[in-house]
């Protein structure tokens, strides 16, 4: 348990549909060159990007193994490989019913279940793949890869216990790297000493305090000059929601319209948390803040949050995404794309940033809050790229949990009335409807 096993990962956008992997597999496993004999399959749909995969994920808790009535399937505790003992398989096909990845099927002649066994650890399909669409990775690989990157912030910054922003900014800068200029406008990230205090800094790359209002503009100026002198330097904003959606919005909007080459990350903790939890325009309806208090006459904020990421989609950005620290891999993939996109124009990532201190929940609940925000569609995770011209849900939620399952995890919503909850649910439904309208089938 808890081990990091290998699995074959697919990056669909890199696959050109050449079939080499399938031929290689068929050759190795069946001695034929017929792609349909392979234990993985990649089929092309009508659209260039649409591909259908059938491939075993070597799941951590493999359902195929768990439903096998014959004891024929097993996951090797050492290698993690899920394999079939053909002599023990009775061909009942319950395993095929248990697998949502089409990773196991009945061999048409033998009438036994067959599946990918990673060729024992050195899969031939991965070796045959010329485009790099297939790769052999472990879940642990990701963490190791992230861990190997240098943390470009020093330890011991004065973030609150369980701060989501700390998690995000450290990971972000690790990935974006040191050839970067970082802007941290007034807010939590700057407040904990990212730029520094009295001559000492906590950041190992160039970093500065823009004004709360001009983060995007200042970065634009820096970037333009480096472009002019032919140097490629990455511009990274780590800004709060106030400096992004409220008073900093004009400069952000202008920079997006002009296509400034910036990675702009908004850490949305839904209010002015650094100054003591006042309302911002991204504070959700009903939420308690110190300026939308709860009393006899007032019961928290009376307006819905400004849907900033959607606004940014309509803003000439090269890439826009939402993210959440409960889905780190998703975030890293988006960062990857943002880095690329920022070579052409603005890449904007709106990171949901639950704040244990200002929202009143236990630091240990941070990831749970994130998960439930996503599971309830309060925080849908999606990405939009100008190239793809479409919005795409990266963690689609088909059967969202009711919003109150999320809301009542958090102190700032504790007072909500039934009507307020209904309002929030309606708003969430409506926003999902709008987002879905932006998805190009």
């Amino acid at each position: 348990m808890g081990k990091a096993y290998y699995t074959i990962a697919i990056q669909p956008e890199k696959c050109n549909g050449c079939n080499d992997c399938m031929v290689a597999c068929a050759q190795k496993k069946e001695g034929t060159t017929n792609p349909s004999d392979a234990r993985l399959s990649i089929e092309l749909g009508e659209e260039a990007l649409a591909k259908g995969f059938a491939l075993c994920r070597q799941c951590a808790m493999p359902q195929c193994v768990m439903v096998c009535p014959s004891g024929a399937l097993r996951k090797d505790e050492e290698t993690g490989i899920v394999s079939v003992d053909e002599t023990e398989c009775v061909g009942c096909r319950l395993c095929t019913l248990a697998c949502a990845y089409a990773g196991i099927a009945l061999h048409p002649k033998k009438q036994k279940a067959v599946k990918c066994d990673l060729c024992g650890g050195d899969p031939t399909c991965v070796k045959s793949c010329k485009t790099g669409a297939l790769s052999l990775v472990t879940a642990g690989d990701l963490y190791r890869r992230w861990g190997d990157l240098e943390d470009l912030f020093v330890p011991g910054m004065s973030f609150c216990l369980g701060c989501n922003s700390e998690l995000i900014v450290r990971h972000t800068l690790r990935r974006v790297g040191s050839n970067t200029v970082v802007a941290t406008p007034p807010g939590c990230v700057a407040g904990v000493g990212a730029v520094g205090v009295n001559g000492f800094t906590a950041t190992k790359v160039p970093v500065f305090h823009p004004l709360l209002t001009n983060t995007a503009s200042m970065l634009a100026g820096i970037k333009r000059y480096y472009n002019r002198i032919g140097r490629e330097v990455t511009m990274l904003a780590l800004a709060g929601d106030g400096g992004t959606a409220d008073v900093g919005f004009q400069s952000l909007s202008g920079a997006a319209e002009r296509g400034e080459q910036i990675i702009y990350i908004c850490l949305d903790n839904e209010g002015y948390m650094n100054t003591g939890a006042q309302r911002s325009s991204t504070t959700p309806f009903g939420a308690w803040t110190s300026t939308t208090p709860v009393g006899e006459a007032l019961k928290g904020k009376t307006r819905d949050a400004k849907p900033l990421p959607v606004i940014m989609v309509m803003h000439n950005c090269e890439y826009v995404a939402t993210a959440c620290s409960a889905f780190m891999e998703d975030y890293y993939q988006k960062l990857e794309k943002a880095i690329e996109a920022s070579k052409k124009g603005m890449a904007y990532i709106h990171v949901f940033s639950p704040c244990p201190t200002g929202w009143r929940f236990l630091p240990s609940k941070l990831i749970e809050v994130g998960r439930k925000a996503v599971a309830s569609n309060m925080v849908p995770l999606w990405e939009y790229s100008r190239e793809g011209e479409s919005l795409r849900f990266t963690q689609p939620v088909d059967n969202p949990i009711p919003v109150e399952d999320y809301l009542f995890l958090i102190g700032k919503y504790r007072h909500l009335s039934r009507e307020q909850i209904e309002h929030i649910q309606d708003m969430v439904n409506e926003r999902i409807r709008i987002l879905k309208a932006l998805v190009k089938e």
Partner: protein
Amino acid sequence: MINTKYLLIGSGHAALSAIDGIRMQDENGPILMTGAEGRSPYSPTILPYVIAGRKDPSKTQLKDEAFFKTRKVIFMEKDPVKVLNSVMSRAYLESGKEVSYEKVLVATGAVPQVPSIPGLDDCPYEVLRTMEDALKIREKAKKAQSAIIVGAGLIGMHLAEALSSLGLKVTVVEALPHVLGTYFDEVSSQMIRQSFEERGVKILTGCLISKAASGDGVCALSLQNGIDLSANMLIIATGVRPRTDILDEYVKKDKGILVDNFMKTNVPNIWAAGDVVQCKDFFEDRMVLNGILPNAVQQGIIAGRSMANDNNVKPFRGSIAMNTFSFFGNKALSIGQVNGSDNNSDLKEDIILSSSSVRYQKILYKEDIIRGVISINTQLDPGVFLRLIIDQISVHEQKNLLGASSLKAGRLIMSARWR
């Protein structure tokens, strides 16, 4: 007295899955699992294959010793629980031992349901639930020339195939008008029936039994429609009933143990999973019995995680009928709702039917969402379709492709949804 944090009663799929569920969250909390039969865990589902000689009975074990060792589980193979005292949090074993637990999972499965037929009690009839049953049937079948199977459900039809493949002359008696009525619609059921009949299996549907008798190594049945049947073996396969006998009156039961979507009973430290429970249906707001293996596994995992206080465990989605069924080299599949399009205008069917061969496919839609699938010998990924149903994915654009090219369309839709 034995003390444990987790007590798992039963050693079937539900209990085994609960082990993994618990260990996801709680690496070391003591787990004790008790079995009734003194065997390594095995699946009742494998028994028809044992009878047919396609599976060596000594090789049916689902988990080996290493499994229990790495997961730090004490497994008492033959120590059935006699009574569970929900007030005291104590289990009293038949061996006289007592177990005091913090949390318990009841995963005792089901027992065959035998209808009351005059004279049946005096007949040497068989049922099929345990390995012992299977071995007995296998022994008897070696000497028998003929068998009557009462019940054309999944177990009955499995047995019919198994016994006829052993050379027995088999007659199946079913009260309902079709075979495998829970899983297949009229057309597909007829297709299956025809295959059986072509291989000499006699199938009598819509037949009620008025009495049973025996003598001279022969069992005889009289049907209400006047037909008399006799054979060397009589097997009753008319369904199962949750095995709730060990529970006291404080645990709420209806037909099975009533559980919520986290497999919790009304008693705070008692969970139940698998064939023994009665739980929410996926499509409708009602509590159902649905004794199938995939449900037992799902429920076991959820129960385990919930018992270990895993906050992120997703609730059970509700019970969905599903099965794979192989007969004489043909492959049938049924998932979800497969009937009801005639009297329910919401539901629409997309059918592929081959007149010349055994080939049939039906996808049942409610608007753009798939509600159910039947497939006989058509190509599709069962697990992918199951997920499309569970996730209620709107497939409006791909409907045509889904019918015509189910395998490809299913994969395209699912892949587009993955990261």
